[in-house]
């Protein structure tokens, strides 16, 4: 469904990604793991059009989408939920959800989707008229995911959805991610919480300073001694 071919990207002169090759198949959950600055977020930015790669190509369902404007890539069915939640703080919960439905505004009334969304996120339904900025961190993350779902994405990319959240909420978020996937949405997940990410994922790629150093089945990676040592830490 998604294919990155030899992607290299730079921030000015700083090499963020070198020759990344990556594939996501329809219906999968794929995790991108690695330390801070390894290039996980940059990879998502290249896919969603925020960062133009210097070399290589991105294909989505056999269409070349390299270098397209982000809003055009959204039209193709890829939704990128950026790091740090980034909901619109001065918009209400409902308005945040409404703007999420921008992609499908011509075919669907955004209100018709709310019930379905609130099934995933019951906590949000009590807060419809509240400003996004007044929500707790966990609720904001839920809103960010909910806003992304409003667009009916085929591929949902989440950047560190667990960042800065309490363990119980992290568990909830991962449960929701699994549920979204089980209803047919393909997921590309960037995480620092490697334990969790490997548990939900089918496959994973591990990045180090802009290069893919390991890839494979999530289960195999989780039991790989080298990977364990480097990424799963002492908690395992």
């Amino acid at each position, binding site marked *: 469904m998604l294919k990155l071919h030899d992607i290299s990207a730079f921030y000015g002169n700083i090499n963020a990604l070198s020759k990344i090759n990556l594939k996501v198949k329809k219906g999968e959950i794929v995790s991108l793991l690695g330390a801070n600055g390894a290039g996980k977020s940059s990879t998502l930015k290249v896919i969603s059009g925020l960062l133009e790669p210097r070399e290589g190509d991105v294909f989505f369902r056999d269409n070349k989408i390299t270098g397209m404007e*982000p*809003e055009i890539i959204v039209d193709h069915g890829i939704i990128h939920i950026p790091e740090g939640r980034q909901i619109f703080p001065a918009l209400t919960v409902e308005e945040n959800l*409404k*703007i999420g439905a*921008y992609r499908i505004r011509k075919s669907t009334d955004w209100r018709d989707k709310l019930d379905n969304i609130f099934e995933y996120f019951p906590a949000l339904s009590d807060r419809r008229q509240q400003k996004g900025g007044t929500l707790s961190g966990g609720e904001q993350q839920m809103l960010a995911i909910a806003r992304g779902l409003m667009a009916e994405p085929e591929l949902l990319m989440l950047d560190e959805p667990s960042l800065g959240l309490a363990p119980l909420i992290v568990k909830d978020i991962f449960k929701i991610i699994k549920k979204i996937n089980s209803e047919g949405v393909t997921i590309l997940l960037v995480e620092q919480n490697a334990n969790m990410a490997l548990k939900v994922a089918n496959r994973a790629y591990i990045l180090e300073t802009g290069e893919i150093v390991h890839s494979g089945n999530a289960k195999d990676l989780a039991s790989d001694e080298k990977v364990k040592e480097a990424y799963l830490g002492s908690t395992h």
Partner: protein
Amino acid sequence: MHWQIFLQNVFGGIETGSLYALAALGVVLIYRVSDVTNFAQGEMAMFSTFVTYTIWVYSANAGFPYPYIAAFIGALIFSAIFGFLIERIFIRPTSDSSLLGKMIVTLGLILMVNGSAGAIFGTDSHYMQRAITGHIRFGNMIIRPHSFFVIGLAIVIMLVLFYMIKFTMFGVAIRATAQNDKVAKLMGVPTKKVTAFTWIMATMMGAIAGLMIAPATNVYTGMMADIHLKSFIAAVLGGFTSFVGPVIGGLMIGILDNLVGYYISTNWQTVIVYGFLIIILIFKPYGLFGEIPKKKV
């Protein structure tokens, strides 16, 4: 009777105030969506008014039965194209520059627009007709139907604008772009189109304000100086982060301006209006309805 004179001044203040409000809304709309303080809003409105005036004169000379309507429609069409071109040629290419850089661009636009208006239309002052001519007497009060037209038009434009911003998908897209354009893009919002659209709307609102004030100021290259300055005061007074603020600010400035001019002195008018602004800013640094700006990410 004193109260009638008072009322007449208040009414006149509402009339000019609603024009300040229109112009101020244009400035705030652009500021919020593209982070640009458009100092050239007044000069752009002046230019549009000159074009409108020219259409009015030509269509009247050509024997067209409704030259004012032709001029009004011409004003809308011209200002829409004008706003679109200014955004495309001057604003979009400089959108990555610093806030100061963007300010210099719009300050430069003042010179360019004013200079070309002088070169194209000359420096003479021209009479412009009111939308509705004549006046009505209520006791000692003299009220022009034109004033009702101005106030009514301003109210209609503001209601349409507020409805759009508050309730339509495009309005939410405008507010989302204003808050965080990068994330708005990630939601599929064509932020460049949104920005272009706000420039078009703001320029149209400026042109309407210019056309409505023209009968009082005449049409000349300096016609918008005062209304432009007052619209900025209105925007600052009401708060740059709010859409309702500039409207209230505009009306307050309009009324205050008129009352001070009549009861105290026209010489001190501007000084007192400024003093009022400064006092408000001491107590409400972000304006009456402004919120402390949140950092854009």
